[in-house]
């Protein structure tokens, strides 16, 4: 029936705007996330230049607040999460043997809402000042009384719009992983990366609605004079802290769990060994996800919740060290006795393990509520979360990008440059943040734009700034590596590492738009490795070659997001007509989507055979 449909297929820029192909959307996420990563990195460098010597006045106090706020917000919401979404889009459907995600259209919508939310947030720089109340946006600092520019308005509306995209992505990947697995791919045969994305998506689903409510309440306070967080009118500022961290703590596990998944894949592949303790890894991942919802108040020990609450949250937080420790030991045992290849991907992965342990240890220190009264709001905390987020997540992302780059683009990143990048970044990272532990213990508070001479902070701040510059050089080298690689003409086969274990290494690099010519039959964990051990070249297909159904491209997601963008702008400046027009665009696109059935199109067998030869 659908065979008769001719679907317009776009080329060039229109192809990228209308695409519903998860691999292309993954690349879009990577470009956008990488762009925001560089912006956030630039902001970090500005912070470190400001702090390189006592009483520096490179940035004004207010400018420093803006840069600091935007560094945190950009890195978490607009750089780290999108790059993770890039990897999950590019890899998860391939790992489970699927031709696409469950909702290709929504996948595209998720990307465009994220992008327009992020752009809205960054436009604030040119519209009277960026948000300046910290990435946690605590009230009363973020209330209209103490923050009278439009900065925090951009924060609440920009994050609200990009949050929609994240929530859509989370639901999409949950359904994809539950319903779209290839025959034989049971839950306990899923690769570790897929498992970690599964749990991460569940965390997104249950954590982001809390942020939605918090942002909505703050927006009502700021734009419509509501009183949620205004103590004069009976509101309560602690309530915002609670809501923010009920979302915020699961959020940090949303960030780190995919990194755990990536590391598990990379270490197993380059140790040429099965991942040690697979089922305990799965169990630990699920347990971390679950416990992640019961520890939020450890960010608020000094708020004064009382000994009972502090004790409860202290113990719950320390409990998380147990599943995390299981993972660390499993990675070490995976490497033990393996034949390890030290290429750049694996260097990042191996470098991750001790760095993350350090971040974890300081985490347990911070979890001890009485001790936290000393650490709270000092550079010790800054050092801790940069050890887990940069030393954990960013190293994980770099490992994943080096590992899957050949699958995503068909070209291997330059190894020499990759190793230089790794050492520059890794040494720079430890230079920047290791000394900050001691700065914190000596009493240097976080979020200050100047410090006095003679407090003993000078040398360590200088070291930290030098380290930050090294990290900056490392990031630029990675961009150079991408450019160098993109100019090479090499063509890679399906399994360029030679040691691929999972299904993504059974199909060409980069994969054709339909991923699998024939849906594979999965006969065990590490499906490709099992076949290799059984003496087969590749996995057995589960179906004959036949016409493949594909979803049609659509411009609607783009316009829906543009509508939200315009609407957000309108409401921010109390231009309700513009706001209404924006929402109208979005709703019209939704109705159009509902009215016109997407029959998609089929790629016929003859076309498929041509594709295989090429």
């Amino acid at each position, binding site marked *: 029936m659908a065979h008769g449909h001719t679907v317009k297929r776009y080329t060039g820029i229109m192809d990228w705007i209308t695409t519903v192909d998860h691999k292309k959307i993954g690349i879009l996420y990577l470009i956008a996330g990488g762009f925001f990563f560089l912006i956030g990195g630039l902001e970090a460098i500005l912070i470190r230049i400001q702090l390189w010597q006592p009483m520096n006045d490179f940035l004004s106090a207010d400018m420093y607040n803006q840069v600091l706020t935007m560094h945190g917000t950009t890195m978490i919401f607009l750089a780290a999460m999108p790059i993770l979404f890039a990897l999950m889009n590019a890899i998860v459907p391939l790992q*489970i043997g*699927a031709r696409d995600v469950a909702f290709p259209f929504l996948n595209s919508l998720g990307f465009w809402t994220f992008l327009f939310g992020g752009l809205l947030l960054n436009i604030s720089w040119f519209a009277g000042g960026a948000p300046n109340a910290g990435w946690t946006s605590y009230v009363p600092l973020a209330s209209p009384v103490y923050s009278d520019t439009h900065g925090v308005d951009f924060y609440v509306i920009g994050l609200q719009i990009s949050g929609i995209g994240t929530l859509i992505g989370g639901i999409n990947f949950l359904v994809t992983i*539950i*319903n*779209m*697995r*290839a*025959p034989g*791919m049971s839950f306990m045969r899923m690769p570790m990366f897929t498992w970690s994305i599964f749990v991460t998506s*569940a965390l997104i*689903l*249950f954590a982001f609605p*809390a942020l939605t409510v918090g942002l909505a309440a703050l927006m009502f306070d700021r734009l419509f004079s509501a009183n949620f967080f205004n103590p004069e009118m009976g509101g*309560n500022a*602690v*309530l915002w802290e*609670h809501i923010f961290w*009920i979302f915020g703590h699961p959020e940090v596990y949303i960030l780190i769990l995919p990194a755990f998944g990536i590391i598990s894949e990379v270490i197993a592949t380059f140790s040429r060994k099965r991942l040690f303790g697979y089922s305990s890894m799965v169990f630990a991942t699920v347990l971390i996800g679950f416990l992640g*919802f*019961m520890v939020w*108040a450890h960010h608020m020990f000094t708020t*004064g*919740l*009382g000994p009972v*609450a502090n004790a409860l949250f202290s113990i719950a937080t320390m409990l998380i060290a147990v599943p995390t420790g299981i993972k660390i030991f499993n990675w070490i045992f995976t490497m033990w006795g393996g034949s390890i290849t030290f290429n750049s991907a694996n260097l990042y992965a191996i470098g991750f393990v001790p760095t993350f342990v350090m971040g974890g240890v300081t985490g347990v220190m911070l979890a001890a509520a009485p001790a936290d009264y000393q650490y709270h709001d000092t550079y010790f905390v800054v050092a801790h979360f940069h050890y887990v987020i940069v030393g954990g997540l960013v190293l994980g992302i770099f490992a994943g990008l080096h590992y899957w780059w050949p699958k995503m683009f068909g070209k291997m990143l330059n190894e020499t440059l990759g190793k230089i990048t790794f050492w520059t970044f890794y040494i720079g990272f430890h230079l920047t943040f290791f000394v900050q532990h001691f700065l914190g213990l000596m009493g240097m508070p976080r979020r200050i734009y100047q410090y006095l001479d003679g407090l003993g902070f000078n040398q360590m701040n200088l070291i930290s700034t030098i380290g930050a510059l090294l990290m900056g050089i490392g990031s630029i080298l990675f961009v150079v590596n991408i450019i160098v690689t993109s100019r090479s003409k090499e063509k890679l086969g399906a399994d360029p590492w030679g040691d691929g274990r999972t299904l993504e290494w059974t199909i060409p690099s980069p994969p054709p738009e339909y991923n699998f010519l024939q*849906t594979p039959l999965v006969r065990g964990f590490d499906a490709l490795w099992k076949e290799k051990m059984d003496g087969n070249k590749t996995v057995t297909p*589960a179906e004959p070659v036949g016409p493949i159904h594909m979803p049609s491209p659509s411009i609607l997601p783009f316009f829906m997001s543009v509508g939200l963008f315009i609407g957000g702008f309108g409401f921010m400046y109390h231009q309700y007509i513009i706001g209404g027009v924006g929402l109208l665009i979005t709703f019209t696109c939704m109705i159009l989507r509902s009215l016109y059935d997407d029959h998609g199109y089929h790629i016929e067998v003859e076309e498929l055979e041509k594709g295989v030869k090429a």
Partner: protein
Amino acid sequence: MAGNHSNTAAEGKGKRHRVEGPQKHIVAYIFSILLTVLAFATVAAGEINSTFTYILLVVMAALQVFVQMSFWMHMKDRGHLLPIIGIFFGVFVVFTCVVMAEFWVWW
């Protein structure tokens, strides 16, 4: 495409299926109405210990919602394991939020 374990049960069920009548839904409706009337009556009568009333009201609401979700949203039927997990985990998170609101906002 295979692999959708949660839904294979729903497919198999089709063969044995009898068209279900409206009776049990009407029973669920009457049950809901009764609980609602009881809740409103409890409050309208007044002069009962307020802590007891709170607990009674929440229990009756939970009971009513349980019946509606089981019958009207078919959560009692086969193939609904994932919806049950999803809703229950949501309820768990809500529970932590309510504990927060009751004990850790004002002190």
